[in-house]
């Protein structure tokens, strides 16, 4: 289990935990980020301040703080 910000671009996995507080948690959920859903790390900006992930065909931009609160069980990507 590791947070998105610990992953590199191209990393994939299944969400196992979302630590964010409401209402951010609810928002992440309504965008399709929920425990059990698949997630792929697509991109981050040069300073890693903003991240882009994809889940079930939806692309989502997140700030570092929010990305760090999402934990995935990685599969098929090296640490």
């Amino acid at each position: 289990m590791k947070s998105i910000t610990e992953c590199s671009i191209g990393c994939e996995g299944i969400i196992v935990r979302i630590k964010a507080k409401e209402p951010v948690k609810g928002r992440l959920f309504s965008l399709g980020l929920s425990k059990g859903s698949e997630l792929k790390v697509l991109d981050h900006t040069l300073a890693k301040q903003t991240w882009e992930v994809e889940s079930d065909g939806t692309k989502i931009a997140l700030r570092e703080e929010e990305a760090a609160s999402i934990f995935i069980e990685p599969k098929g990507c090296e640490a």
Partner: protein
Amino acid sequence: MKKIKVALAGQPNVGKSSIINSITGARLHVGNFSGVTVEKKEVFIQRDGYEIEIIDLPGIYSLNAYTPEEYVAKHFLFEEDYDLIVNVVDANTLSRNLIFTMQLMDMQKKMILIVNMIDEVEKQGGSVDKEQLEELLGIPVILTSAKEHRGVDEIIDQIIRSHEQPKPKNKIFYDERIEAQIEKIVKVLHKSPHFKDPDYARFIAIRLLDRDEEIYKVIHDLPIFIELHELLGKIYKHLEREFDEESTSDIMSDERYALAKALVMGALKSPPKRISLTDRLDKLLIHPIFGLPIFLFFMWLLFQLTFEIGSIPMEWIDAGFIQMSNLVKAVLPEGAIQSVLADGVIPAVGSIIMFLPNILILFMGINLLEQTGYMARTAFLLDGFMKKFGLQGKAFIPLVSGFGCTVPAYMAARTLKNPTDRIITMLVLGFMSCSARLPVYVLLIGAFFPTSHAGNILFIIYISGAILGLIVAKVLRLVLFKGEPEPFVMEMPPYRFPSMKALAMELWIKAKLFLKKAGTFIAGASMIIWFLSAYPHQPEIEAHYMQKIEAVQDEATKTLLRNEMVAKELEASYLGQIGKTIEPIFEPLGFDWRMSVAVVAGLAAKEVVVSTLATLYAVGEADEQSHTLIQRLRENVSFKAAIALIVIIMIYSPCIAAMSTFWAEVPQWAWRGFYLVYPNVLAWLMAFGVYNILGWMGY
């Protein structure tokens, strides 16, 4: 005629608007939701003896409202009176959309599900099983593609059918353990006369498990509250232990997620995964290193095109209005009416309509950025940068819309949830020069810079406005609002080819509004300016100069004297008196009274600055070489004063329409007052600084 009222609900970017636009025979009405300035689009359709009204609600991700716009949609769904809900979902992201669909179905209203953009799924080899989905959800389903006009007209037939038939039985049930608790809550709710209806009581019970604070407020004032409160406390604890979750809202979310997954499994044949166009474009457009330069290039290109292409028809329009003015002079008898038309209204309106091409190009560019989905990318690219200035990436969208028009930009700031972020964004939005200021810039650049640099200067003006906005945002964040900016979570919609029809429609509406404004408001304002500049009559001055003119023989001296007479008359007019009164304020900036008047008139609308300058510098016969306003400006205004004028226009209060929008959006008096004062003070100080620095530099 019988009426059917339909609420059109769906998540953002599912193509609700394009569905509404493509319904045949529909009459569109654009207004506002009562009490707020969120745009309300309604269509009216007459069919089979019914008048059907469809209300397009703002896009909403879930019933746990997050942004002000979502509150509007939620409020409508919960409180207003309507007959059925039409829920639009995107076939590409079905499972996420269905989570919201289930929240809507909890309301136990009549409902129709529209699976839009079906063509995109099918093109990739996938499909949606309509019958299966209807069977599982228990509501009618229509597969549509607004782009191919497929299934759209079925919607109306289905609305009538659903309206005439009884509501189908609810088929959405949660885990037994949850259902058992819902039943308990419903039992207590039934004790109150408000919740006798079992469907409604079930909905309230589910919302209570969703921890909906607004629903909690509703029951708070009821006599059953104490009993309910106690029960809810127990139920929350019980379920949270049972499911090992932090909150019942998480349990409900997980439930809906699992149900949506099951629905999708049964009804959707997924297309084989492959790298989409969006992925390939994103590789380049939001590249960590190349992304930003590409973005800056696009912006630069936009301003270049605005200036270069926009200037082509300008001369024709200008010539057209000069012709018109001459025609009026030839046809009408000499006198006040001829003068007000030929010298006042026509040149003033003409001087503004000239800029219609520029404005349309700029608007088209911003519209394209938004429609294609690139705007969301820029928010992604710039969030880190914006955060340094105490703003967040999403604020970038209203800020860029501000280059088009400040009024919708203030409204776009509604997508910012946090009130502090929102007010900071709105306070600096005015520094993003709107398209109405473009004419002033184009005029002054044309007068004081070589044509080859025009596009670049324009780009610099816009960029420095934006930079100033960022600096002010930072100062506001440091001085007035402490604390962290709101979290940044945003969907990045797939790139879509813009709909040319929608784009043409937007531009047409924009052009129409602009011409209407030029023909009414600006024509009226310029008539007032003309009147103030032509009256009161000065028979002594006229007589005095006429004598002098008679006395000299030389034509050149005659012209000189005639100009002097006109100038003297203008100075003695009402407008001259007003200008003289306010001149001391602007004198340190090197403005004469004419420019002062133009600046003040610009508070009504920025286009009026140009028309006022046109009237004030053009009244009377000038000498042979200076036909155009540009030449007159060159003769009368110093370079540094012109730059100071640009700075003032860039910074000071926007037009009346924008100011009143701000007032409508911001209820706090302190902010309203601050908003009225600080841009003007800042504008003056900045202009003063620039004027003096240029002075030292020897301009």
